[in-house]
């Protein structure tokens, strides 16, 4: 019965999609505000990666909201799995020598790669969120390879809050100096170079650290809670 009603409902939704999408032909150029962003992106923000200038400069409030969503998710997970630390599961099988050694070698390299991604966010594809996810994967690797690995949750929580507060403080500085919240008030510099695009690399470093610490904290919370 439930399946039948669901299929009927989904049929209606599919019909609605079909009618709506037939008015938006695939591949047509319907850019509205995007044209403004592409044409004035480098001049107004200094970043050659237009997606970065949209994310961190033109629509920076969305990014603040997104960072807060991840913060809320991490908080909620911490609050629900409280108290988190149930001790080590001695029956867990020890990973092989190759995995352990490889994890030890790869750990700093992955961290370096993640940092490279978010530092170069305004020049190449990538940015704070992508870099942060890579950094968190380094910590996940450590959890998979070593049985007794545990993160220092307090330090990570401090990094997370500190970089989040730094994001809003930079925005408030923009309000004080430039007159608008999240204004890009530092000089734009020369395009294509590392130290360009004003406030954007600073914001992306903050976001990268925050997301890395947050996702690592989520991974730690789930790995360390043994249920049952």
């Amino acid at each position, binding site marked *: 019965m439930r399946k039948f009603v669901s299929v009927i409902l989904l049929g209606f939704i599919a019909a609605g999609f079909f009618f709506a999408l037939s008015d938006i032909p*695939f591949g047509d150029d319907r850019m509205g505000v995007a044209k403004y962003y592409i044409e004035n992106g480098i001049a107004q923000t200094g970043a050659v990666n237009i997606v970065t200038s949209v994310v961190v400069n033109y629509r920076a409030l969305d990014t603040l909201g997104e960072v807060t969503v*991840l913060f809320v998710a991490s908080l909620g997970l911490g609050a629900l799995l409280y108290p988190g630390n149930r001790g080590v599961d001695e029956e867990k099988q020890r990973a092989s020598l190759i995995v352990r050694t490889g994890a030890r070698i790869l750990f700093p390299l992955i961290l370096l790669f993640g940092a490279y991604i978010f530092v170069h966010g305004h020049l190449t594809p990538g940015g704070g969120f992508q870099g942060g996810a890579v950094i968190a994967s380094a910590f996940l690797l450590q959890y998979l390879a070593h049985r007794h690995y545990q993160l220092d949750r307090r330090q990570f929580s401090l990094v997370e809050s500190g970089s989040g507060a730094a994001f809003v403080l930079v925005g408030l500085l923009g309000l004080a100096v430039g007159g608008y919240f999240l204004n890009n008030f530092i000089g734009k510099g020369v395009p294509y170079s590392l130290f360009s695009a004003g406030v954007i690399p600073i914001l992306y470093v903050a976001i990268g650290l925050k997301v890395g610490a947050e996702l690592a904290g989520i991974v730690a919370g789930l790995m360390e809670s043994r249920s049952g």
Partner: protein
Amino acid sequence: MEALYSNMYYVGAGALILVGLYIILVKSNLIKVIIGIHLLDTGVNVLLVAVGYIKGGTAPIFTRTSLAPTQFVDPIPQALVLTAIVIGVGVLALALSIVVKLYENYGTLDVRKIKGLKW
């Protein structure tokens, strides 16, 4: 058939959305429902990016061999999808932690058996 092929991304996005909705509405195992939520979010993200595609365009990043601005795809849906993916990850993490606690409390993951709250 030609129309299906040329609108492949729309069809794919729509299929992901409908399959995700079906799983959420019909399946009774909570982990499957969470996978359904993830499929639904993925489908919506593909739809967002597909809406921004422009024929013959490439990634909106100026490189030293600078491209003319008319050859870019729309950068805004890419920014929107960045946000949407992160939000999806947040929802998923929270859902899994609630399910862990639910399993501790009830001992089962079957939605039909978790009916402690009566009418």
